[in-house]
């Protein structure tokens, strides 16, 4: 090591705060006489590598994946026999943290008073049944989702609570936003803050749905575009009670609407919880 390298080594350590007082004195005496080392000193003390601002999607993407993984672990404990649905291509590409609002519409309708989409999708089961009930109400559901690129089998799993907040309310009034994690305290708080529509004027005929209905389950969206909703054991029982009989099928249609961003989508899921003899419970699940 030549003289310059020795002192430049000191200078490099000086900017890192690694020199003793004696070494600093030695360095200063040298650079007072040596232009080359003085240049290096000027350079090292002037280096300022400022931090760049990370793009906002870094935090968003990381937290979406983190919450998804948290939910996936939870969901894997409750997965059982699946009920398969399908959504349009592109739906599985949604990787987002979102809130879900689930709306139940109610009203005894004898197989008539349904939204056109519901009628279209329910036509087959309706043909087999003699009557159906459609209930008004809202269910708040929040979840975090992300496409699981690294685990094709698991896919992206959404899970959370489904809870009927009320019945006999208008669709607009049902739209209560939530952004809390499934089953978390904020969701409970939002639930209590919801307007009390318990004595609403709807023509609901199924008493079970006049009270709060909480259905815990897992909504999974897979890379191949299929969607699966699996209520957990308690949730399944709750749904059967609400439907007034055994549930033979849960079906859905998922519609993707224009996104508010590349990774955010608004789509609607219609869950048809079908009891072939008498009941047809239609659940509109809007995710945004």
């Amino acid at each position, binding site marked *: 090591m030549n003289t310059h390298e020795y002192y430049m080594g000191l200078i490099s350590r000086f900017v890192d705060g690694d020199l003793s007082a004696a070494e600093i004195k030695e360095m200063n005496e040298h650079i007072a006489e040596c232009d080359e080392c003085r240049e290096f000193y000027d350079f090292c003390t002037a280096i*300022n590598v400022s*931090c760049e601002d990370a793009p906002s999607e870094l935090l968003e993407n990381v*937290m979406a994946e*983190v919450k998804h993984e948290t939910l996936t672990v939870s969901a894997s404990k409750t997965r059982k026999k699946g009920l398969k649905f399908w959504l349009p291509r592109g739906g599985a590409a949604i990787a987002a943290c979102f809130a879900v609002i689930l709306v139940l519409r109610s009203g005894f309708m004898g197989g008539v008073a349904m939204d056109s989409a519901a009628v279209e999708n329910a036509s087959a089961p309706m043909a087999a049944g003699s009557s159906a009930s459609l209930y008004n109400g809202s269910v708040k559901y929040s979840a975090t989702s992300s496409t699981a690129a690294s685990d094709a089998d698991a896919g992206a799993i959404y899970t959370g609570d489904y809870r009927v907040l009320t019945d006999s309310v208008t669709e607009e009034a049902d739209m209560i936003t939530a952004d809390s994690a499934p089953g978390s305290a904020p969701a409970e708080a939002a639930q209590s803050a919801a307007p009390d529509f318990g004595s609403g004027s709807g023509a609901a005929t199924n008493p079970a749905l006049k009270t709060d209905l909480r259905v815990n389950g897992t909504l999974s969206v897979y890379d191949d575009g299929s969607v699966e909703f699996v209520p957990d054991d308690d949730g399944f029982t709750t749904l059967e009670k609400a439907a007034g009989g055994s549930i033979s099928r849960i079906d859905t249609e998922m519609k993707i609407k224009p996104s508010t961003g590349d990774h955010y989508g608004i789509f609607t899921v219609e869950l048809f919880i079908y009891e072939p003899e008498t009941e047809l419970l239609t659940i509109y699940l809007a995710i945004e």
Partner: protein
Amino acid sequence: MDANLLAKRAADGDTAAFEELVRMHQNQVYTMALRFTGSKEDALDISQEAFLRVWRALPNYKADSKFSTWLYRIVSNICTDHHRKNSRIQSISLTQGDEADDETQTELPDETQSPERSFELSELSDALKGAIESLKPELREVFVMREIGDMSYSEISEALSLEEGTVKSRLFRARKYLQEILQKSGNIPSVSPSKSMKDGDK
């Protein structure tokens, strides 16, 4: 709140604590990755991967070292892997006589900059960034950890499993190389003849 305390909470599944950790460190991690790769897209990918690796490994995290040291070591590992992959791709391209050669060369600082300009490196940030990216990976990782991660010698030593003497030596070589390349490009003035250093060779 202290990062190590947040890490403990996050290890217990507290996602809010983890989110705070990400907020606290995201700019450093992203900048480190950016200086390593020179690509915003790659830096974002690497940053995301680093935080997710941390999240997954948190249950095994032992708070006997600073959280940031652990985090930056993970960033460094991912960057190193990234560099290896890119080097392999570049090697294949060269073997095939691909014209991608020119595109894969690190952009050196702008040589049109006036040598007489002020010696304020803040004004030369682009040139400095380019120069950092042209450092050899083993020098770059140490330099980035020190200058961006504000890590001490001992923390860098721990993170990279190096002797502290090696850390000091690499930092000196990195700084010397950066000075020379910026002098050559005219981004900073030079009153003394500079010797060629090869530490920038990739």
